[in-house]
């Protein structure tokens, strides 16, 4: 660890502690350093209530040669497999992977890497490598001072951009600070012999280094995930949000989907903000400037007029755009606005609470203004509106996996009404208005009522729609911790081909055994609608058996209907497979809830 990070603003150490630590570390050889790191990790784990078992069972890391292949026709894959076999024959641990399924955020941790790649068409990467290529040449590409690598290209000299992708990877890895251990070869259609000799040459260089590194790091105890940060206190909260940066905004429902769900990545670099799986992220947002303009026009006010808000003076435009609620509608606004404007229609509506609720269910705050324009003083308008509240999103990532990033799974609120497209305040801001690289204010809302159990305990996760978010965090956490407890996820959405959120990631977890079971309910793919609760009941015997074995149960997502239907399904399962009376079943889940084995994050 470079010492600069010890004195970074996020460091919990004071100056004297930094000095002492620097002094100690300078006297240690690498093996001693590694031992100390393991000792401290274990101590921190114990201090924060972790079990000794998890420390003892933390995986020992040996040096691994990662081999990635980017194959269009299977040739690169075949060559990569041969390199793997040869390396393993020399006693080297190898991880062979299709570059398509490689997690790019693991790259910064790699020490030894060989890439075998073909090139497609006019010098483009093969389809499987498009994402990796983009990552390597993108803004998020990490510095790679630790990485030692070699690249092998397969191509066809009759194409103008022969082996272009290999050249790209080779040069870009070097540009990112990685060390080229063995010179790249660009091989033609008849590559077999040349590939074999390149393989031999490369392994002659890699093997001794890998073996040496393996011996050196074998004592290192893996840092036990984000549990080490469990007790840390963030200087940020709702009142003092951190300024972070939007680093990715990716739609993860297919074209033709009726849903627009975004995978949002936010960089927390330099904020020191930390979180745990189960936490939520509070997001402040700016209102749509067009909406602000429309409100100004409807009320005959000028954006330049100064108004006072919470003891501060600012322009009306700033107040409307940054500080006041214009989307989420609420009754007290209608009351105040009716009074301020003297609008009799609204005044009547305010008197009838049921009608008012129905009225507001179809409208955003701004709709009320736009449909009832009135000349107002700027300050009077401000006084009608309440301060905007940040929106909370269940965090969809674990820092053990993503480091100084936080991921969200955001369902974009979008509907047409009154001849206009309406966007949700925060979801519209994240999905449509904030550009990648743009700043936003965030804070972490800790949620100790939605926490993973210890590493050995099985968990059942029920998260249809965007309810999958915290379970993505759970899976990342358990994957990185090497947790042995079984993981069972129930997911649902309208259509398999369009709405299977994080499908590729979940398939990978399933393949690698991180997910023990995955059951899906795509409600609209057949005449009879099927929901997660139906899938849960269909697997009732097994669900009950897991619960008897101590499984923890989690529900995330829609609280109005889904969570209730799932709860009913659980009661039915207890009755059918546990032989419990209705009352006993209710008690059973109440006890689970009290012992924190039944946790919900619903909205």
């Amino acid at each position, binding site marked *: 660890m470079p010492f600069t990070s010890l004195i970074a603003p996020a460091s919990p150490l004071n100056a004297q502690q930094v000095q002492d630590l620097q002094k100690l570390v300078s006297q240690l050889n690498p093996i001693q350093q590694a031992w100390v790191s393991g000792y401290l990790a274990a101590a921190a784990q114990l201090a924060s209530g972790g079990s000794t078992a998890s420390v003892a069972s933390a995986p020992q890391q040996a040096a691994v040669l990662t081999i990635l292949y980017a194959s269009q026709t299977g040739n690169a894959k075949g060559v990569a497999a041969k390199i793997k076999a040869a390396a393993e024959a020399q006693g080297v641990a190898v991880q062979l992977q299709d570059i398509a399924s490689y997690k790019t955020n693991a790259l910064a941790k790699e020490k030894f890497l060989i890439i075998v790649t073909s090139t497609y068409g*006019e010098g483009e990467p093969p389809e499987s490598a498009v994402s990796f290529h983009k990552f390597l040449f993108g803004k998020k590409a990490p510095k790679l001072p630790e990485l030692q690598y070699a690249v092998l290209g397969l191509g066809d000299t009759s194409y103008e951009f022969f082996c272009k992708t290999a050249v790209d990877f080779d040069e870009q890895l070097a540009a990112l600070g990685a060390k080229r251990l063995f010179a790249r070869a660009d091989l033609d259609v008849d590559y077999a012999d040349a590939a074999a000799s390149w393989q031999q040459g490369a392994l002659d260089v890699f093997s001794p280094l890998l073996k040496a590194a393996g011996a050196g790091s074998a004592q290192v105890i893996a840092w036990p995930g984000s549990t080490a940060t469990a007790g840390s206190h963030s200087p940020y909260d709702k009142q003092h949000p951190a300024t972070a940066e939007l680093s990715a905004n990716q739609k993860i429902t297919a074209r033709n989907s009726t849903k627009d769900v975004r995978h949002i990545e936010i960089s927390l670099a330099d904020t020191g903000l930390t979180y745990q799986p189960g936490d939520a992220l509070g997001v402040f947002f700016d209102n749509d400037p067009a909406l602000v303009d429309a409100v100004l026009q409807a009320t005959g006010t000028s954006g330049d007029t100064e108004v006072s808000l919470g003891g501060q003076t600012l322009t009306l435009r700033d107040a409307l755009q940054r500080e006041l609620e214009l989307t989420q509608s609420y009754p007290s606004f209608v009351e105040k606005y009716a009074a301020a404007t003297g609008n009799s229609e609204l005044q009547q509506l305010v008197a009838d609470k049921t009608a008012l609720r129905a009225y507001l269910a179809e409208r955003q705050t701004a709709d009320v203004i736009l449909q009832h324009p009135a000349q107002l003083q700027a300050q009077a308008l401000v006084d009608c509106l309440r301060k905007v509240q940040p929106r909370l999103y269940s965090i969809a990532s674990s820092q053990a996996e993503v480091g100084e990033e936080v991921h969200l799974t955001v369902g974009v609120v979008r509907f047409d009404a009154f001849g206009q497209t309406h966007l949700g305040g925060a979801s519209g801001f994240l999905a449509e208005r904030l550009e990648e690289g743009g700043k936003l204010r965030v804070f972490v809302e800790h949620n100790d009522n939605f926490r993973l159990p210890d590493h050995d305990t099985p968990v059942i996760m029920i998260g249809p729609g965007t309810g999958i978010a915290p379970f993505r965090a759970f899976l990342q956490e358990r994957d990185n911790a090497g947790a042995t407890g079984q993981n069972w996820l129930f997911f649902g959405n309208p259509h*398999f081909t369009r709405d299977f959120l994080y499908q590729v990631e979940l398939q990978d977890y399933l393949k690698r055994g991180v997910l023990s079971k995955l059951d899906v309910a795509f409600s609209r793919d*057949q005449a009879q609608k099927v929901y997660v609760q139906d899938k849960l009941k269909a697997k009732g015997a097994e669900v009950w058996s897991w619960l008897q074995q101590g499984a923890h149960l989690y529900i995330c997502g829609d609280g109005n209907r889904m969570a209730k239907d799932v709860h009913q399904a659980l009661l039915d399962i207890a009755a059918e497979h546990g032989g419990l009376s209705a009352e006993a079943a209710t008690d059973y889940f109440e006890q689970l809830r009290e012992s924190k084995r039944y946790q919900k994050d619903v909205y």
Partner: protein
Amino acid sequence: MSQYPINPELQVQGALSDNERLKAESHHLRGTITTDLKDEITGGFTGDNFLLVRFHGMYQQDDRDLRAERAEQKLEPLHNVMLRARMPGGIIKPEQWLAIDKFASEKTLYGSIRLTTRQTFQFHGVFKPNIKPMHQMLHSIGIDSIATAGDVNRNVLCTSNPVESVLHQQAYEWAVKISEHLLPKTRAYAEIWLDEEKVETTETEPVLGDTYLPRKFKTTVVIPPHNDIDVHANDLNFVAIAENGQLVGFNVLVGGGLAMTHGDKGTYPRRAEDFGFIGLEHVLKVAEHVVTVQRDYGDRVNRKNAKTKYTIDRIGVDTFKQEVEKRVGVQFQPSRPYTFTHRGDRFGWVEGIDGKHHLTLFIENGRLLDYPGKPLKTGVSEIAKIHKGDFRMTANQNLIIAGVAAEDKAQIEAIARAHGLIEDTVTEQRKNSMACVSLPTCPLAMAEAERYLPTLVTHVEGILVKHGVADDHIILRVVGCPNGCGRAMLAEAGLVGRGPGKYNLYLGGNTAGTRIPKLYLDNVAEAEILAALDTLIGRWALERHAGECFGDFVIRVGVVAEVKVSKTDFHA
């Protein structure tokens, strides 16, 4: 194990290709397909099943236009299957047509019926939950898709010749019999797709063998002088020999095939060899033993050299032929004379010798779909509702409304015209141009074919007009990869995809389809292709002999050398 003595010196020794392992371990093509069908997490098939479903007539594909977009969306590729039906001779009844039309509309991603060069139809874009219902629907109307892909004998073609109805009927019946005789005997298809009971039998595959054939195998029955099915694209061909309008036997041509691999000079398109004449009584045995000889001597080590054409070049024509004769127990007689004169379909109405009328419709790219202003697919289904004869899919991807009584002609033609199925303005050039499916569904495609063909033909039409030969045509074929589906390697001008927007241009096939063209331009874009065609068509218009086709011309004046023996000439 073969039931015949094997000469190991004629076999290719070495580690078998992985496809051989998967066939051997598949329990006669069952694999774990039924398990995959229940897997709700992926729309695709896993492991060996990905290849095994081909033996059941399906290819796993995905929409390649969406592949990168879906990867960004963290969604798997839009996996689906393409199904190719088994329709020997391409004859389909109206009630069958209405059923497949309905399925295509309601249960496929693209909503189309694709007529193909294998004289059958394909569904494109069938998602996993619809696969079993699809097979059950087909079964209910007497259609299956057994062995239309994979290392087996595929759909057997038969010249579409409704005019000589007696001869055609006899030839067609042989196509059906050969298809049935060479089918896999495994009950895997019935068990997996039709839910038929598992019968405990010790299954064997006496003809195909327990590891099936080394590679795909294609068979035709052809009625000269028409060569619509392109004999030289096929492993095994029965050339109908008639006396007084009655079929008396076949000349047998073996070892044609068009597939090759870019950059691999050990692969090449090759014409079939004439083994000689046989009487009707030996047809099934000869078919069986051309297959068993290829089964026993084909290359199972290197799949790129596994087809019959390479077996013949490796062990020799005479050795191959003698082994067939030994196994059948008869000698081939000297070939009977025949000639091929043309390959295109005869569009419009023709009257058969039985007094029935037949309407051949030009279907561009074979794609039946309701296009804006041209509801082709609806048009054919409207005809199917009233038609009393049958439909015949041609090997040129067109459709014949066959067996129409004189009094029904007007009504059928009116429907066809109302739906854009007959357009009097379509040029001879367009009618003689063909493309394979390619992008976005074919996983092998390197360049556009079907979606590019209409534009390319318009350019070539312009060139023909410019040089004053607007009514002439060249046989033009475009394929997305070098695997041969669109038979570009028997075209006068064949484009074979190399990469996005790039093709190899081959010249020098002939109208009868008896000559392999040769490489003229390597890996070039449209501008270079059109410039070359402009120059050469210009010269052809001025310098050709009377009746000389474009392919003959470019060879006579030395633009390309003639490919006489593929193994030595094609890459020379």
